[in-house]
């Protein structure tokens, strides 16, 4: 904490230049959060400005302070949190020196905020209209009838269908995307000058994310307001922000116009972050390369820190970095780095880890380790309390077939509710299929008795999204890792002990962790532990259900690399389930795309992602925000309308037809999954299957 406050360069003071006065200026902002175990210096000397009408993106990993910045401005810091230094200048007035009532009014009328989780950010027992209109009633003293009318009007403007009906509904009656529209409407009802959106789409599916981001864009223009877009997702920022600020460990480390930042990042952290993205290596040439992963963890902000905070994890750090306080440079593109990226020292030039020789293309001749045929899973839907009646079937999985070969990664991608996780649970035997076959290593597991089935569990293991929740918090690591061995009665105590240490070595954890409990680990370490546990029985197939979705980009890269290394060493096959197309693309040899319980497209990863044949796949790809701020090729731009239909009564025929832009009469009959290597279930595939020489491989035909 030796920020040279007086000498810090700052070139955005009011009246400084001919430029329009900034709407919001943060000067030397410092925020602390007092906890029982000490004080966390969440923000330390943050300097930012937002000009009228512009979108400022704030990007960073968890703990970087991006959300704390937003909450400091809004005065919504969690309990124990307080702004301890600096100024928050809004329209030229320091919010920290104004009387509280005045500040509250400014925040209510001149600013609006949209939060991450739309499912919990509305009051469950208050009608939507009442909540939306509340700022009007409170701050502008508008009458009941007029407030209602204006609530309906603003709900219409955020694209809410049947707005006049929905004002009288309660939040739980709406989907997540619709609830986020309500929150946006609420933030906009007093026509604010500044909208702060904190991870507004992180909890939403990509297609919904796209709708919401476009809405925010449109509204910004319409209302002529400025937007602060806070996100961990570089892709979201790249497409939407005018300028970007990158935060790390409570400080802004780099800020620049968006295009410039993405084209030529200067700070070594920004550079490393971009290299950690799976997209960075899955281009035409880079497929199969290792990701750059930032070693270590972000610093503990409750301790005093010296020098550049990224230095301990930086490839280019020198002793000087650890002792010198670096402040942001001046100009349009500011960065706080002693050894910034220059044209000659880009990371690609210094990438030390050579790409491992690719053991590409698993032999098609080998017999499949897993073969799923016409898998169906229905859940009975019931109504009523005591007198339950079956009211229909929820069709979670409807006739899914695919094969996974040894050493191969089969990616299963789709939005929430598409049935991908159910497929995973069926494959590992956590649930029983309604119909269809799961053939594991040549044996249909339905034909096995209990004991045999238990033995087959050694072959298939599961890796969870939330490894913490998937571990007994009262068990030590040694017990957690030994449990599968005990259940399967593998070896004696010393053999198990030896196996456990071997596992820790494989996943890169120190042996000292054996006596610790799950809560002592970080998210990335927990995923390593989860992987170790899955590996304990030397399985041949691991089903990973969103294994990296809860992790930050840099940590995600560590886990993905580890998974690929182990695959190469142990000849593992993966079923990699994720909603994140770029991660699935990076990891998988082949990809299956699911929609509402059906596989709509299966094929080699590269082809599915770059030459999608099903309109849904294309829409999914188009919806994924790209880190390239200026996409080179014009996109096909298939935009899906509306919302996912209920799986309770799914559409007949092609299940996507209700939202498909090119659907016709014939789509009421079900299209079969047809094709050779690159199969698609569509009457009007976007592309013909590319002619490939050689025998059909990998497909089910």
């Amino acid at each position, binding site marked *: 904490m030796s920020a040279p406050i007086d000498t810090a360069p700052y070139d955005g003071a009011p009246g400084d230049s001919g430029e329009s006065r900034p709407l919001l200026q943060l000067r030397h902002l410092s925020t602390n959060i007092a906890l029982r175990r000490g004080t966390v210096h969440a923000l330390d000397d943050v300097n930012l400005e937002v000009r009228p009408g512009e979108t400022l993106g704030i990007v960073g990993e968890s703990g970087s302070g991006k959300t704390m910045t937003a909450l400091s401005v809004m005065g919504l810091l969690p309990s124990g949190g307080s702004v301890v230094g600096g100024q928050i200048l809004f329209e030229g007035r320091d919010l920290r020196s104004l009387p509280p009532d005045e500040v509250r009014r*400014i925040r209510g009328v001149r600013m*609006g905020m949209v939060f991450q989780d739309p499912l919990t*950010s509305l*009051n469950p027992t*208050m009608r939507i209209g009442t909540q939306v209109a509340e700022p009007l009633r*409170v*701050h502008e003293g508008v009458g009941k009838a007029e407030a209602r009318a204006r609530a309906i009007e603003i709900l219409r403007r955020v694209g809410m269908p049947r707005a006049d009906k929905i004002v009288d509904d309660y939040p*739980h009656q709406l989907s997540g995307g619709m609830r986020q529209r309500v929150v946006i409407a609420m933030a906009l009802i007093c026509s604010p000058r500044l909208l702060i959106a904190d991870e507004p789409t992180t909890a939403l599916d990509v297609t919904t994310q796209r709708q919401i981001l476009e809405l925010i864009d449109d509204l910004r223009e319409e209302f002529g307001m400025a937007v602060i877009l806070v996100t961990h997702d570089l892709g979201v920022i790249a497409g939407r922000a005018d300028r970007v600020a990158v935060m790390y460990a409570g400080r802004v480390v780099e800020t620049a116009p968006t295009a410039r930042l993405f084209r030529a990042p200067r700070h070594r952290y920004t550079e490393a972050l971009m290299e950690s993205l799976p997209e960075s290596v899955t281009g035409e040439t880079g497929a199969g390369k290792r990701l750059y992963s930032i070693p270590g963890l972000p610093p503990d902000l409750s301790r005093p820190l010296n020098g550049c905070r990224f230095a301990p994890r930086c490839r280019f750090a020198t002793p000087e970095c650890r002792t010198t306080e670096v402040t942001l440079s001046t100009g349009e593109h500011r960065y706080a780095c002693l050894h910034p990226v220059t044209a000659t020292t880009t990371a690609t030039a210094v990438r030390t880890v050579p790409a491992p020789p690719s053991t590409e293309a698993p032999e098609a001749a080998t017999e499949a380790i897993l073969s799923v045929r016409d898998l169906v899973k229905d859940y009975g839907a019931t*109504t009523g309390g005591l007198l339950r009646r079956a009211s229909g079937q929820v069709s979670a999985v409807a006739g899914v077939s695919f094969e996974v070969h040894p050493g191969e990664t089969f990616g299963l991608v789709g939005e929430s509710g598409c049935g991908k996780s159910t497929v995973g649970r069926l494959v590992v035997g956590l649930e029983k299929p309604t119909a269809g076959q799961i053939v594991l290593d040549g044996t249909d597991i339905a034909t096995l008795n209990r004991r045999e089935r238990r033995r087959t569990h050694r072959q298939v293991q599961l890796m969870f999204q939330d490894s913490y929740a998937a571990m007994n918090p009262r068990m030590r690591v040694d017990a957690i890792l030994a449990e599968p061995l005990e259940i399967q009665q593998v070896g004696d105590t010393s053999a198990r002990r030896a196996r456990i240490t071997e596992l820790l070595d494989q996943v890169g954890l120190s042996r000292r962790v054996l006596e610790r409990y799950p809560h002592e680990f970080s998210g990335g370490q927990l995923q390593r532990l989860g992987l170790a546990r899955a590996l304990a029985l030397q399985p041949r197939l691991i089903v990973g259900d969103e294994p990296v979705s809860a992790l930050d980009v840099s940590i995600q890269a560590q886990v993905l690399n580890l998974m690929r290394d182990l695959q190469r060493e142990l000849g593992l096959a993966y079923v990699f389930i994720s909603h994140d197309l770029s991660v699935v693309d990076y990891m998988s040899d082949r990809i299956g795309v699911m929609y509402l319980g059906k596989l709509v497209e299966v094929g080699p990863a590269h082809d599915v992602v770059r030459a999608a044949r099903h309109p849904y796949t294309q829409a999914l790809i188009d919806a994924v925000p790209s880190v390239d701020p200026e996409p080179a090729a014009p996109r096909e731009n298939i935009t899906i309308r509306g919302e996912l239909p209920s799986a309770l009564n799914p559409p007949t025929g092609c299940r996507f037809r209700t939202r498909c832009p090119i659907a016709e009469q014939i789509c009421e009959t079900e299209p079969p999954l047809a094709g050779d290597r690159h199969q698609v279930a569509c009457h009007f595939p976007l592309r013909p299957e590319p002619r490939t020489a050689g025998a059909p491989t990998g497909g089910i035909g």
Partner: protein
Amino acid sequence: MARYLIVRLGQALVIVVLVTIITFVILHLLPGGAARATLGKEATLEQLAAFDHEMGYDRPWIQQYVMYVQRLLHGDLGYSFQLNQSVTEAIGQRLPKTMVLSLLSTLLAIVVAIPLGVVQATRRNRWPDYTITSLSLLAYATPIFFLGLMMIILFSQVWPILPPEAPQGFTLGEVLADPAGLVLPTVTLAVVTVAVYSRYVRSSMVDNLNENYVRTARSKGLSERRVVVQHTLRNGLFPVITLLGMYLPALFSGALVVESLFNFPGMGQLFWQAALKRDFPILLGVTLIISVATVLGALLADVLYAAADPRVRLRRSAS
């Protein structure tokens, strides 16, 4: 909503029928049967047989059960030979008094406990919270008879402003005519309840104040008062509904200690004396009434919950 109510009523009815069966079985499991229990050890076999015949206890069980239920439906809970009056009459005399006392103390408890809980939650881990927490733990830990005695000593001996005895009137009207006498028993009963309720309100309000929707409400620039009263209070009071439902049986059973202490002839005393004298018709009658009250309490809580929480209401009516 209507459908939901009908289903819930049906469930309650089934449970009440089960309760009558259990009560009926207990009546017949009495050592030596009801006749011996009623006529005492000295009775001869002929007397017992005559009694059984007179009461219909020699008929088949099914028939007896039907008769039992028929009598229940006519409000006939049996006859207490000890008190020499019908059970219905005995309960009828005491129940209203007990309910007056219980209702008053519950109302008092709610009126005090909700603001206390809200104050604690909004000033969590600061001195108002610590003070109220300490006081409610103290109140909760104090035996109620000791608390009542202290009340009597303080307010009718040291500082004689209130009578030490509850109203002795025979009818409800006479009881109500002496409100001063009701103060000490009501307050004594309420103190413990306040301690319990305020803890519930506090923890529920703390949970709700940490919810994201409260942060949304604050982002609208609402005053803290409005955030608490308009947004959080309603959701924070849901647990109190459950508590009230669970409290309904206590409304009927009365509070033995307080009734004894203040010499108030209510249900608690009736039950206690019947237990001492092995007056089975009274015991079973009171048991039945309390069981039914328990079922009704749960039903009431569910209905109130549905009325208060649109998530419950709408989901139920949609299905």
